[in-house]
């Protein structure tokens, strides 16, 4: 056997092994994840079937229907609710993440954040219902204190939707912010204050630019699920606080307008993808800045990469 043959056969073997390890997952994702997504994309360009389903005829009707003022209102509402809820999450998460990073009881605090986060989401929503409803915990307390006689209407409106959304997704903002702030070198804050900055000035001018990637992750990780929220507006929202998620589900299960549901899904997918790409690009840029490698190091890295990835001979 010549060396060339040996090399070729070892490459073949590597390819065979790699494929046999990764193929099951690849096939699984292709069939059960990519195929469904492709079907949705396809359906969004088709005509609605008479009794649900679709007719195989190209049409932009679904996209046209999205500009129906009723749906337009929902779209706008979804956007502003998501922006407000995300903003609150971030504003609460920054000081919380900071305090956690500075604390001596990090593990305990992490634990405290994670427990509600891991508790079943329906249970958490239910808990808010029992607090906010007309005969709920909050109203009962006010009543027993003699402040009010009739229960206040605290639930089934935009406010309750935003409040519960903040509650549900706050940990998504806290965890990445905590992780980045924890890695931040706090002596930089001392340096800034030594040079004359106030405490908040130091945080704004020195810390925030350094925790950009964590901030971005927090925003994207909070905004995307809120934008696609379904359960929260369904269970604590009023008649007029539906969001895109609810429309999609209604179109599928009630109206059975699959093309329209697909078209709305495309919007959600697009927003999420853009957010994730934005996040990944910015973190990649940051890494590239950090790793300003010389050519020599690059060469070494190349060799190293070869050794670590192509080590089968």
């Amino acid at each position, binding site marked *: 056997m010549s060396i060339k043959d040996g090399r070729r056969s070892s490459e073949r073997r*590597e*390819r065979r*092994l*790699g*494929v046999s*390890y990764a193929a099951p*997952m*690849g096939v*699984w*994702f292709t069939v*059960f*994840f990519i195929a*469904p*997504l492709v079907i*949705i994309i396809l*359906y969004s360009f088709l005509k609605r079937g008479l009794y649900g389903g679709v007719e195989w005829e190209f049409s932009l009707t679904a996209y046209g229907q999205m500009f129906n003022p009723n749906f337009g209102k929902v779209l706008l509402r979804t956007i502003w609710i998501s922006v407000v809820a995300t903003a609150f999450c971030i504003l*609460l998460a920054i*000081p919380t993440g900071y*305090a956690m*990073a500075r604390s001596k009881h990090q*593990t305990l*605090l992490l634990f405290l*954040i994670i427990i*509600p986060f*891991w*508790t*079943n*989401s*329906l*249970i*958490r*929503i*239910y*808990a808010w219902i*029992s607090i906010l409803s007309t005969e709920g*915990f909050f109203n009962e307390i006010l009543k027993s204190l003699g402040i009010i006689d009739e229960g206040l209407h605290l639930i089934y409106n935009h406010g309750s939707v935003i409040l519960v959304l903040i*509650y549900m997704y*706050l940990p998504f903002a806290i965890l990445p912010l905590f992780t980045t702030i924890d890695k931040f*070198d*706090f*002596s930089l804050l001392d340096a800034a204050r030594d040079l004359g900055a106030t405490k908040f000035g130091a945080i704004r001018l020195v810390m925030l630019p350094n925790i950009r990637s964590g901030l971005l992750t927090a925003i994207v990780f909070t905004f995307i*699920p809120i*934008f*696609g*929220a*379904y*359960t929260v507006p369904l269970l604590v929202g009023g008649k007029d606080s539906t969001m895109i*998620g609810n429309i999609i589900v209604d179109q*599928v299960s009630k109206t059975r307008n*699959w093309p329209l549901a*697909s078209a709305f*899904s495309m919007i*959600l*997918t697009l927003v*999420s*993808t853009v957010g*994730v790409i934005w996040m990944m690009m910015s973190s990649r840029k940051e890494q590239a800045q950090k790793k300003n490698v010389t050519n020599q190091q690059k060469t070494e890295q190349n060799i190293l990469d070869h*050794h670590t990835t*192509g080590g*089968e001979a």
Partner: protein
Amino acid sequence: MNGRNPENGRKQVMFHDHRTFSFSNIVMVLVVVFLFLPLFVVVLYSFNSSKGMTWDHASLVWYEKLIFDSPSLWMAFKNSLIIALTSSATATVLGTLAAIGIKWYRFPGKSYITTVSYLPMVLPEVIIGISMLIFFSAVKIQLGMFTIFVAHTTFNLPFVFLLVSARLDEFDYSTIEAARDLGANERQTLLRVIIPSIMPGVLSGFLMSITMSLEDFVITFFVSGPGSGTLPLYVYSMIRYGVSPVINALSFVMILGTMLIAWVFRRFLKTIAANS
């Protein structure tokens, strides 16, 4: 202020700012209270003898009902367990193998698989649920336990893949070469060296999958069929159609379950940290 002590890698408080009532500490405490208040209310009222939110007297009546008088709840719990175990096991096997293949071999389609594996984590659950529902109806697969299993495996896979990949990143490729050098073949290397070394990552992936599977409502909601209701679906119908305080009792049990899993997880992570 805090800095890393290079000697032991621990946090070291070096500077003046440890006032207990700083702005950030106050916010943090309020946030923790905010996060726990609803859970606390639910737990408290699970011990209330009356049906409403007016406190009557302490009683275990709802727990009695939960345990002895809720056959459909237990049915749903059984379904949840079956789905959680099967989908987590499948996801763990597929995700682990893929992580190994992606980490160490070059082959066509590698970047496709890597990219695709991140998507289910970032897409809103509604999209995953809807697309699967439409897919299953398009290919005429009856909705039921099987479709739930497929959906759960799909959203569990990325987490296993990610956790095992992270573990593999710490793993020195020379170790595999050493195994080959010392006489192990491909299969022996996989079974005797790679798998045991990445076991902590594999187990965390499995545990994570179990929790997420038990938790999931939205995706399951779309792909479940008659008779395949899971626990979260049961809870949903309880909230939607007739609230019974049994749900309070159930909530406390589930919160306890979460804490137990979190505790096991932490203990487990600690043991790993001590061993590596």
